[in-house]
């Protein structure tokens, strides 16, 4: 966008030299056009060359052929836009030609969409996003992160306590787990076999892809549900962490808590962090709607929504990383200390990136 702004200024300067207003003169010189009787129609005849040139440029940009535009056209665009916009304001006050007015309204609107439209390519957006935009958005919702974290911890404890008081809860939290050996009463050897020695398992990469798609959809859901004042997001967080608590309890009874933590932490630190962010993003929107503060509700919702959407784009990235770790690293690394080291360093990495990496994304120009 910086480029276009520079060009716009440059174009204005050049326009003063009147080299760029060739279009109007050309139209006036065109003797084949009969001179109109009405003053407003003559006004139009003098300027329609500019109008049509702008329309041609805009049509090309809309078709996505920005590159095929000549330098002269690109320089002329902002000048032409202003010219046509001023034609429109004059025509509104002096002309009763409905068709011409409608044409001008449409043309100025189309030009406005292009001059002020999203001129950020996916690459620039990504560079700004990774170079500070994402971590700033995460820091922008600090309160929601704390609430979501508290809810997740509470959910885990509730899950643990529920199953500890009555093991029947386990089947409620894991419905339909018919073929799963991880049930209350399973022996230590059986549980241990689910944690170690699966290097030979085939289909790891396909499994990773499936996990990513599944988890990403759940994270998007947690975010989207934030629209209802954030409450469903919190419920989704509780439900998911309660199953985690139940599983921790199950393995703890056989003295495998640390091994399970290692097994989970490889991808879990990344994945749970992503889920935390998604839930917090949902909550952030909900808070924007429920407590708009001094802003109008719609503006507050839109501001928080855009920040949360940035975070969500990052959540999808984190889930790709998590799926890679889950599909490959967890199955290939077979020792608890190494697993814990991998998980811990991932956690440190994310925390450092979000909270220590304070760079202004606007600095990237």
């Amino acid at each position, binding site marked *: 966008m910086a480029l276009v702004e520079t060009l716009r200024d440059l174009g204005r300067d050049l326009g003063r030299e009147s080299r760029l207003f060739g279009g109007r003169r050309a139209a006036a010189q065109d003797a084949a056009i009969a001179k109109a009787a*009405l003053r407003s129609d003559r006004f139009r005849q003098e300027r329609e060359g500019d109008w049509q040139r702008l329309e041609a440029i805009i049509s090309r940009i809309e078709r996505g052929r920005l590159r095929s535009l000549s330098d002269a056209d690109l320089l002329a665009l902002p000048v032409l836009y202003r010219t046509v916009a001023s034609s429109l304001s004059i025509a509104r006050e002096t002309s009763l030609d409905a068709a011409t007015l409608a044409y001008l309204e449409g043309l100025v609107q189309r030009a406005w969409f292009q001059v*002020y439209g999203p001129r950020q390519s996916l690459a620039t957006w990504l560079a700004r996003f990774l170079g500070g935009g994402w971590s700033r958005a995460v820091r922008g919702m600090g309160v929601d992160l704390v609430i979501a974290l508290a809810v997740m911890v509470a959910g885990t404890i509730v899950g643990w306590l529920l199953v500890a008081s009555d093991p029947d809860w386990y089947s409620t939290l894991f419905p339909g787990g018919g073929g799963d050996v991880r049930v209350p009463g399973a022996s230590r050897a059986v549980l241990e076999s689910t944690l170690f020695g699966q290097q030979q398992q085939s289909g790891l990469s396909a499994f990773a*892809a499936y996990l990513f798609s599944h988890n990403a959809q759940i994270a*998007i859901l947690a975010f989207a549900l934030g*629209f209802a004042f954030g409450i469903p997001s919190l419920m989704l967080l509780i439900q998911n962490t309660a199953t985690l608590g139940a599983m921790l309890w199950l393995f703890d009874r056989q003295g495998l808590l640390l091994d399970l933590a290692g097994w989970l932490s490889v991808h879990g630190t990344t994945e749970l962090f992503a889920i935390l962010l998604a839930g917090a993003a949902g909550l952030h929107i909900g808070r924007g709607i429920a407590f708009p503060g001094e802003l109008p509700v719609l503006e507050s919702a839109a501001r928080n929504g855009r920040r949360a959407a940035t975070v969500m784009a990052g959540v999808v990235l984190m889930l790709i990383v998590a799926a890679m770790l889950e599909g490959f690293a967890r199955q290939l690394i077979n020792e608890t200390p190494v697993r814990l080291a991998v998980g811990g360093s991932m956690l440190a990495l994310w925390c450092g990136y979000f909270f220590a990496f304070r760079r202004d994304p606007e600095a990237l120009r």
Partner: protein
Amino acid sequence: MSRASALRRWWNRVTRDPRKRAPGSDRKRTLVTPEGIALNLTLATRGARLGALIIDLILIGFAMMVVTIALIYLAGGVTKVGAAVARKDAIGQALQFLFIVWVAAMFLFRNGWFLFFELSPRGATPGKRMSGIRIAARDGGRLTAEMVLARNLLRDIELFLPIPLLLSARGGDMGGAGLAAAAWFAVFMLFPFFNRDAMRAGDVIAGTWVVEAPRRKLAAAMSTGNAARGGVSAGTGARYRFGEAELSLYGEYELQVLERVLRDGRPDALAAVHARICAKIGWDPGEGDERAFLEAYYTQLRARLESAMRFGKRKADKHSGAA
């Protein structure tokens, strides 16, 4: 806005002369650009948006189907070739790779379709383009990538979750809970019907709305013909000059109707309007020269109204006071 003023506005809208109300005038919004130009936007109708969505869903479904069939075809080929030459795990890896491609493609189609197209210069998916609509920032500012992201991430609860839920709730396997969930999601689906700007939940949190994308050709100038310039008919040589009294009968509304009739150029409409104006100004309606007569009348009426306009006097229609 207070309830009383909202009520008054509603009453004014209902009781206004329907002739003066342009179709869809309650969808008009004005937006001021940084140059200070007031742009008139027209919000897209809910019908156009639904149409656009259906087209997009059909296209997405079609694309998913094509990719799936192509990958199955590829997989089939791999098995046949592989059975002859390769070792077992090589086949497995190839199939795995295809499965990953398939999962990624389905995820992208579901989540990336709208994102990709709405970030393009047109700000519209193929369905929206066909319906002649696009998205825009509500505050008149730049449309950013974050906005497009936010409005499309919410599609999940508006569309992809409730539709299967509604279908299963009808079957009744989930009982009351299913019905309750369906009602809950219906709120999101029907959200555009509960606000004046027809915003989806996604539009609300992104700060966007959907507007009509104008696409008009520049029509010919009206006052370039012989009849328009000199009031002289090229066909019959008749000379049409109208006096003050004859031109003061009509206002801008009638002028624009006349413009439409002239631009459309349908002979029966021309004849009807010609007869009507002649009767009104007390001329004897001849036949065969309607177009020249109307062009002359149009040009002189417009010249009169426009010169009054330059002095700040406007006459909306034949009922309003003298220009």
